[in-house]
């Protein structure tokens, strides 16, 4: 029997029982669609988070107070029990590192903003003039914070686009006075609207000089220091220089944490990658179930077509012919199911993208390949047993059964 004939015969056999075949294809399709949709979701989430972090800027090092690793015991551990705060002078000192181009100290707090009787809660961010370049924000109107001494508490503010809209509506905001907490500040600029960044929308932010913020919140500590290295390759040596400077300023104890974007990205990438893989594994279970279903259906088909198998043997079919015919049928069912499932899965992923435009829910190629491969693999694997059973039927008994 030529392979073209085997295929044609198997296809005719599959089409000869439309209900059975369509149910079978549906089961396989659901399995493959589950893999495609779930991995699209997982990978979409991963890409979303990675994208969020990438928007931080590529050569950033973030300095935060406190240590998040156990570093053993040194002299400093006996002197201090709580980590020292980060201060503005730390930030200024960091600028001495040769590989550092810019820094931005961050001081964050919540306060109330009021103008002309309108009042709302806002997040106030104290920083310096370099912040806008480090974060790559853009101004809609006016200018960003002036370049000045970090200790100088100028009474100026830059507001986010949403704040401007809510407080000023259509009237001009730049040049107006606002009250933030107990301070009267003059608006010198409005940020261009931007999306979410690390869960903090710049659209709802009031940015003031770092000294102003520290005065406002009556503190002299910093929330973070953002440091920009000169270029991407300088990230690791720059981090070393920063650590040296900070250690020197802290009696030899490095009780701060330095994170690079690569490290954060790598971690999230790994976590969400594992999540995607887990989800794909769950979806793969449905494929295995579909595979068992293929076996069941093919076993029933062998029983149903015992007479036919006997006849084919009487007409001179070898065991191999019959095995191949049944195996081809299982493979065809699996391929059809896999293709339908692939289409359904992409439809589902499209639906997700439509419903949640921020989520880039595209199924990763490896998942699609694995899904289709597993479908075909299980179909064939579970088709072997029925095919062998068919090829081993005793022709005399098979013919007698009708």
């Amino acid at each position, binding site marked *: 029997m030529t392979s073209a004939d085997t295929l044609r015969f198997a296809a005719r056999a599959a089409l000869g029982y439309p209900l059975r075949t369509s149910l079978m294809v549906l089961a396989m399709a659901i399995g493959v669609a589950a893999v495609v949709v779930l991995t699209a979701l997982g990978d979409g989430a991963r890409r979303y988070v990675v994208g969020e972090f990438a928007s931080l800027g590529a050569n950033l090092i973030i300095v935060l107070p406190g240590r998040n690793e156990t570093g053993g015991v040194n002299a400093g551990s006996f002197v201090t029990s709580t980590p020292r705060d980060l201060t503005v002078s730390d930030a200024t000192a960091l600028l001495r590192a040769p590989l550092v181009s810019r820094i931005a100290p961050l001081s964050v707090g919540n306060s109330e903003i009021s103008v002309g009787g309108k009042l709302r809660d806002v997040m106030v961010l104290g920083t310096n003039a370099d912040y806008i370049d480090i974060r790559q924000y853009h101004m809609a109107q006016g200018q960003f914070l002036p370049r000045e001494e970090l200790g100088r508490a100028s009474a100026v503010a830059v507001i986010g686009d949403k704040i401007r809209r809510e407080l000023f509506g259509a009237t001009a905001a730049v040049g107006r006075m606002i009250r933030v907490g107990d301070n009267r500040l003059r608006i010198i600029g409005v940020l261009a609207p931007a999306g979410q960044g690390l869960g903090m929308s710049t659209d709802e932010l009031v940015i003031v000089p770092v000294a102003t913020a520290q005065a406002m919140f009556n503190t002299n500590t910093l929330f973070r220091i953002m440091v920009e290295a000169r270029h991407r390759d300088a990230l690791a040596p720059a981090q070393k220089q920063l650590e040296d400077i900070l250690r020197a300023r802290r009696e030899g104890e490095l009780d701060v944490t330095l994170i690079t974007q690569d490290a954060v990205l790598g971690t999230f990438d790994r976590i969400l990658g594992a999540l995607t893989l887990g989800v794909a594994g769950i979806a793969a279970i449905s494929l295995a179930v579909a595979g068992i279903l293929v076996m069941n259906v093919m076993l029933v088909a062998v029983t149903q077509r015992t007479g036919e198998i006997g006849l084919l*043997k009487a007409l001179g079919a070898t065991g191999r012919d019959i095995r191949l015919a049944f195996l081809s049928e299982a493979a065809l069912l699996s391929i059809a199911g896999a293709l339908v499932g692939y289409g359904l899965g992409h439809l589902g992923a499209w639906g997700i993208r439509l419903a949640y435009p921020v989520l880039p829910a595209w199924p990763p190629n490896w998942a699609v390949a694995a899904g289709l491969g597993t479908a075909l693999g299980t179909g064939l694997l579970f088709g072997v047993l029925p095919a062998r059973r068919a090829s081993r039927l005793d022709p005399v008994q098979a*013919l007698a059964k009708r």
Partner: protein
Amino acid sequence: MAQIELSGIERTFTLGDSEVHALDKVSLRIEAGEYVAVMGPSGSGKSTLLNLLGLLDRPDAGHYLLEGRDVTTLSADEQATVRRARIGFVFQSFHLVPRLTAAENVALPLMLAGVPAHERTPRVARALKDFGLQARADHRPEELSGGQRQRVAIARATIMQPAVLLADEPTGNLDRHTGEEVTALLEALNADGTTLIVVTHDPAMGGRARRRLMMEDGALRQDLRAGAATSPTAAPT
């Protein structure tokens, strides 16, 4: 050399704890072109004999020479090849594949033999025409009458031009008139030189054969030839 030569064939089935001798030391010679009816009560072993002759079953003892070649020692796949090329089957219940059209059913042996599709089509068309089925080529078995179905089955059995045609109660499921038509068809094929072996318990049909083998309890009781009885193992004329 006889076309078919059986010597000391035995076939035993185990039913529960009792053994049934379906065939008991059967020896037989059939020449090419003979017309043989195998007759006997049910359970006498005639179907088992036919299955053995068609290489669907293996004897427990004895030898079967088909055209001088010992086919009992062949592997299952080698037997399949011999069956495909030399033997045609006609069954009582036709055994057509229900989802295939008449033409596709007739083409099955050619397909199994690996004959390419473009060679199959004219051969199938000629066969269907020979059996008066050209108008029915695209009909499925369920759309055919019993007589037509059996004609499709005969067309299928003869498409490979086998040397031996084995028919198991070929008229058993047909009414008298169509049964006679089918019998005439088989006899016409025999007249063209194909060896025809028919299992039947219809005495009318058996009576038309030139040679009758009467079976009972797995053994050949009588070998009647054109009216004259001879002993079962005697050489044919």
